[in-house]
């Protein structure tokens, strides 16, 4: 039977050392059993590798950074939609989710579907609100404090012991062993991602991640836990293995049930030596390692697209345990004309 063909736009094509999820999401969509795809890449920078992966991405358009404003983004999406007749957009960056959530009704009116968390869910799970989130949903989280001013750094040792984590509001985290290091990371991270900065208690233990999909009604459509096996100096998993930890899956189901989470997500967890789980962060989108979920039997991006289109999706019941992903770097040879095309005209 001939499968329907969907036009899907995907962001996060930066398959670099701190990779965006786009390329993995596209691989998953290309393997979908319920539809075929035309993929439109949406890029922010001309050197995002996904732009040049023509076996995965059919065409790419540059889009404005969120700082340019929602109206500018909408105008660009209208132009792209006119050309590509998009059915679905999958945004993959934390920083772009706010404008996309705001634009969801307008895009839907244009016939473009998304499956994103609500603005309330997006704000509530934010790093700056993690303490309240943990209290509200009875989930263990490390103590954290939001700071806006470098002068308040000196009072931190009365509330936190060293080492402590210094985090940016969207990305980046560093472990600080002294006040001098806290100050240095405060300046470095705030210069890149703005204020506030989050100071978080350091939990000794092993890092785990869970990715999954909530249907917005409290049901778990998919959940795959993974242990990071190889971690880069940016803290990114360069290799990982699927595991079957019931405690993690319970925490995930509880998170989805209580928040009625809508969309893809990644939970960042730490397990201490006593086996206690702490929720460090909730990323409101699919992670860069999402292709592992496909490899173990849960094509989460495919399910997300079907939910976005309003179709009934049967929750995944199982996945393979003990399957690994190992990431690699690959040098592509690209003609300068292609680079010029995306840089000058914003289309390739």
């Amino acid at each position, binding site marked *: 039977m001939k499968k329907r063909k969907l036009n899907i736009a995907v962001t996060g094509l930066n398959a670099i050392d701190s990779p965006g999820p786009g390329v993995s999401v596209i691989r998953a969509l290309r393997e979908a059993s319920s539809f075929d795809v035309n993929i439109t890449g949406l890029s922010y920078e001309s050197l995002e590798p996904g732009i040049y992966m023509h076996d995965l991405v059919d065409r790419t358009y540059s889009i404005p950074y969120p700082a340019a404003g929602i109206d500018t983004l909408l105008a660009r999406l209208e132009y792209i939609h006119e050309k590509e007749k998009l059915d679905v957009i999958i945004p993959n960056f934390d920083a772009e989710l706010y404008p996309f959530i705001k634009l969801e009704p307008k895009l839907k009116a244009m016939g473009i579907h998304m499956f994103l968390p609500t603005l309330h869910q997006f704000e509530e799970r934010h790093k700056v609100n993690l303490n309240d989130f943990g209290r509200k949903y009875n989930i263990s989280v490390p103590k954290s404090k939001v700071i806006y001013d470098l002068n308040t750094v000196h009072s931190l040792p009365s509330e936190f012991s060293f080492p402590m984590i210094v985090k940016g509001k969207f990305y980046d985290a560093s472990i600080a062993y002294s006040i001098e290091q806290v100050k240095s990371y405060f300046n470095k991270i705030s210069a890149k991602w703005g204020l506030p900065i989050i100071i978080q208690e350091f939990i000794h233990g092993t890092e785990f991640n869970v990715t999954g999909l909530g249907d917005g009604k409290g049901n778990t459509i998919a959940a795959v836990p993974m242990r990071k096996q190889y971690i880069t100096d940016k803290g990114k998993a360069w290799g990982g293995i699927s*595991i079957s930890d019931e405690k993690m899956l319970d925490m995930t189901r509880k998170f989805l049930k209580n928040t009625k989470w809508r969309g893809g997500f990644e939970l960042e967890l730490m397990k201490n030596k006593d086996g206690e789980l702490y929720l460090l962060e909730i990323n409101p989108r699919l992670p860069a390692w999402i292709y592992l979920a496909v490899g173990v039997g849960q094509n989460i991006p495919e399910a997300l697209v079907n939910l976005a289109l309003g179709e009934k999706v049967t929750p995944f019941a199982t996945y393979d345990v*003990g399957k690994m992903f190992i990431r690699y770097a690959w040098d592509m040879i690209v003609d300068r004309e292609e680079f010029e095309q995306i840089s000058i005209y914003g289309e390739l």
Partner: protein
Amino acid sequence: MKLRKNVAVSEAGLLFNPVTGESFSVNPIGIEILNLIREEKDPEQIGRIILNKYTTDQATFEKDYYDFIGILEHHNLLESHEETKA
């Protein structure tokens, strides 16, 4: 003492704990001892089998055996006493 049911042991000697995602490599005698533990042999029976098969003495076997068990316990690969009772 019992190896956790869900711990996978390959013929080549790779142990995989699916709950934690940890893997460990074990040498051939380690695999032999793990298989004997799986057959629910007690330490005395395991000792007799190993001493009959290999040139070693009781004291050396016991030291190495309990070191090995200690490592398995440290990595949470053995069932706790409560789990064994249940």
